[in-house]
């Protein structure tokens, strides 16, 4: 997915990996890199913890922490750091249990039909979480939906120091290629059972595609890339994604929007996140109030119904009694019609005259 400008040129063999316009976001780091970054630089809470055993929350938190510290460190980082970091890239991770891991396994399950030929599922599977970029992971996990290319383009366009940034690659796609083909060289790639592909190697389009599903297919939910797509198809979908997301003002779902802004404007991350959280809480409260309101009104109406029912019953009983009484009276009148009359008669009869 998201082959930005840098990625494209890289793909066409125009540029070696190094001069790529790099962007400093931790999101373009792979898990391995990120972990080493964390261990080295930040004093964050998730320090040194195995990502596999982290739950997503912890992961995000540590990412954010790292992002902050990285933003500060970025200016001073040296090109040498890059190589080291990339060296750590290909370390196969022993994937332990827990949430990040589980998420990852889901990915693998989803993607495996799309993985490059059934030949080497294991070598592919093992290294990849370590190599997956954080962004990719988050995107795939459904935490975010964003294309880094847009942000990367912006970043690359703005400050010169960023262009020289040692940390990482423009986007996931190129990241991947770089891992396999470029920076790590043939050794890294072949260790994973792949021929060096991608960067500077236009003759292996299918291979590129074979690898893409691991990365590209996961990008935006809408984009699904089959394993055997031609590179044209691949590029098409990539273009689509990029086009779709190229606007920096495009609304993005929850955690990422703030992060992007943070990436652009430094220290506002916390503020934005906090604001969003507050809004979320408010929203929840409001929903609870709404439910309570409805329930209260329902109760009131039920009580009213109950009351009216009772009243109705009472009135009906009363009415019945009245009817009964009337009937009795009528019957009485009918039964001895003479009683009355006789008395009348008698009275008249016994009149004084």
């Amino acid at each position: 997915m998201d082959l930005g400008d840098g990625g494209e040129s890289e793909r066409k063999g125009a540029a070696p990996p190094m001069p790529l316009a790099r962007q400093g976001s931790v999101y373009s780091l792979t898990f391995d890199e990120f972990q080493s970054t964390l261990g080295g630089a930040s004093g964050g809470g998730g320090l040194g913890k195995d990502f596999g055993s982290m739950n997503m929350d912890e992961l995000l938190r540590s990412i954010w922490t790292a992002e902050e510290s990285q933003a500060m460190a970025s200016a001073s980082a040296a090109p040498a750091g890059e190589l080291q970091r990339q060296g750590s890239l290909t370390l196969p991770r022993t994937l332990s249990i827990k949430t990040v891991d589980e998420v990852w396994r889901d990915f693998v399950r989803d993607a495996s039909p799309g993985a490059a030929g059934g030949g080497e599922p294991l070598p592919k599977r093992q290294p990849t979480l370590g190599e997956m970029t954080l962004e990719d992971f988050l995107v795939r996990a459904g935490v975010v939906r964003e294309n880094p290319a847009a942000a990367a383009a912006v970043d690359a366009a703005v400050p010169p120091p960023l262009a020289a940034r040692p940390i990482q690659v423009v986007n996931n796609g190129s990241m991947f290629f770089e891992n396999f083909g470029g920076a790590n060289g043939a050794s890294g790639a072949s260790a994973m059972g792949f021929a060096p592909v991608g960067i500077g190697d236009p003759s292996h389009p299918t291979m590129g595609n074979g690898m893409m599903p691991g990365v590209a297919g996961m990008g935006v939910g809408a984009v699904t890339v089959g394993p055997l797509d031609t590179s044209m198809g691949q590029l098409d979908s990539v273009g689509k994604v990029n086009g779709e997301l190229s606007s920096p003002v495009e609304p993005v779902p929850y955690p990422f929007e703030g992060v992007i802004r943070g990436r652009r404007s430094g220290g506002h991350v916390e503020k934005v996140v906090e604001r969003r959280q507050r809004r979320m809480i408010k929203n929840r409260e409001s929903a609870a109030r709404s439910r309570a309101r409805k329930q209260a009104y329902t109760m009131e109406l039920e009580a009213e119904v109950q009351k009216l029912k009772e009243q109705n019953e009472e009135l009906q009983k009363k009415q019945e009694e009245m009817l009964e009484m009337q009937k009795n009276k009528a019957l009485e009148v009918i039964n001895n019609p003479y009683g009355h009359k006789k008395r009348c008669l008698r009275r008249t009869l016994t009149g004084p005259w």
Partner: protein
Amino acid sequence: MSRFVDPLVVGRVIGEVVDLFVPSVAMAVAYGPKDISNGCHIKPSMAAAQPLVRISGRRNDLYTLVMTDPDAPSPSDPTMREYLHWIVVNIPGGTDATKGDTVVPYMGPAPPVGIHRYVLVLFEQKTRAVDGMTAAPADRAYFSTRAFAAAHDLGLPVAVVYFNSQKEPAHNRRR
């Protein structure tokens, strides 16, 4: 005839405005032809004029009616809680609010944000309120029904009715 308290609890009127009480007087509130049952929705324009509030109770008992909005200015952030809309004192039992003495004139609901609750609380007075004893609060905002009751020795409410109201689309809103 006592009203059920449950809707008041669920609607958080009991808790946020008054404490748990046992209704002992019936209070019927009607805006024009519309009778108010707890939790019903009334448009601000319908409630622009004061409602007819009829109460039961003995003729020589006197009652105080207070109407407040605990959700001002916004239900999610009621920084002005409560906003006072109406105070009538010395309402004789078995009559309606017009027979009492208005301390704070009626003001219709005008919720700026969100759905507000408007709570009518009836207290039984222990004595007749004389002029000046129940001075009108200087500000309608930041009113407290509880504090008011405590200040005038009104005890717990004897009846509470509340309704909801929400801002209407701009053109038909009246205050």
